């Protein structure tokens, strides 16, 4: 199955790339990207289904409810970096083209 790379998905991948080794909370990703839960979670679900994202439940002291954590897998990291690169290349090419036109 092909992953739909919407601007929002790219934003989420970008958020993970800022500190790739750290586990992140859903609400923190939402705040960093400005995405609402209704947009963010389907993206996280799709990434997890394609094994680009690993999930884990936080281990906490007794009585305190655990939180769900997310981090890119090795494949996810590679995928995110490749797409960041292609996005950057596209931007440079577009800028160059617009320079040529003007």
């Amino acid at each position, binding site marked *: 199955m092909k992953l739909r790379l919407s601007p929002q998905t790219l934003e989420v991948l970008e958020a993970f790339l800022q500190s790739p080794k750290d586990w992140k*909370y*859903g*609400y923190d990703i*939402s705040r960093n990207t400005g995405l*609402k*839960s*209704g*947009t*963010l*979670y*389907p993206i*996280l*679900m799709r990434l997890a289904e394609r094994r680009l994202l690993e*999930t884990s439940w936080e281990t906490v002291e007794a009585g305190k*409810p*655990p*939180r*769900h954590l997310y981090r890119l897998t090795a494949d996810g990291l590679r995928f995110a970096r490749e797409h960041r690169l292609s996005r950057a290349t596209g931007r440079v090419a577009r800028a160059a083209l617009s320079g040529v036109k003007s």
Partner: protein
Amino acid sequence: MSTVRRLASKLLRIVIRHSSDESQDWANAMLRELDFIESDWAALLWALGSTTAIFRHCLPRGLKTWFGKLFVQQGELKNIGKQAAGVVSGAVIAVGVLAVSAFGLVRLSLFLFPTWDVGRVPWAQWLAVIAIPETIFIVAALALRRKRRSMAAGIVLSAIVLFAHFIVHVATHG
């Protein structure tokens, strides 16, 4: 806890209770985040968005399971789609053949043999509209029956409809 936050929490608990096993983990994750959202209204919006997300996650899977049960095997759905496409394409081909035969042959004969005046000869019209297309349908259906069964079925269906139309026409108009 404010009423709004209680409502947000209740909504997500209902979602957890009614979601599928695979979505439950996600719904729980969304519920856990509620405690870390400062504003009550933001918490409610979070819960509403989460409900939408779970619904979007569950709906395709639920439909798939439902259809899967309906057709016993999931693969059958694909097959039914393919078969329907085959039948439709068979019918479309048949209509094309009929059109070519009915208009094309008559026009061609008028062009090639203008003295025959085929337009005024009833048997020539029946030949172009019924006999030739029906013969082509039967030959095509026989040729396709092994490799493209559904397309052959579409052609046979068109042949039956055309023949029925012919019978009705003869019965009503003489």
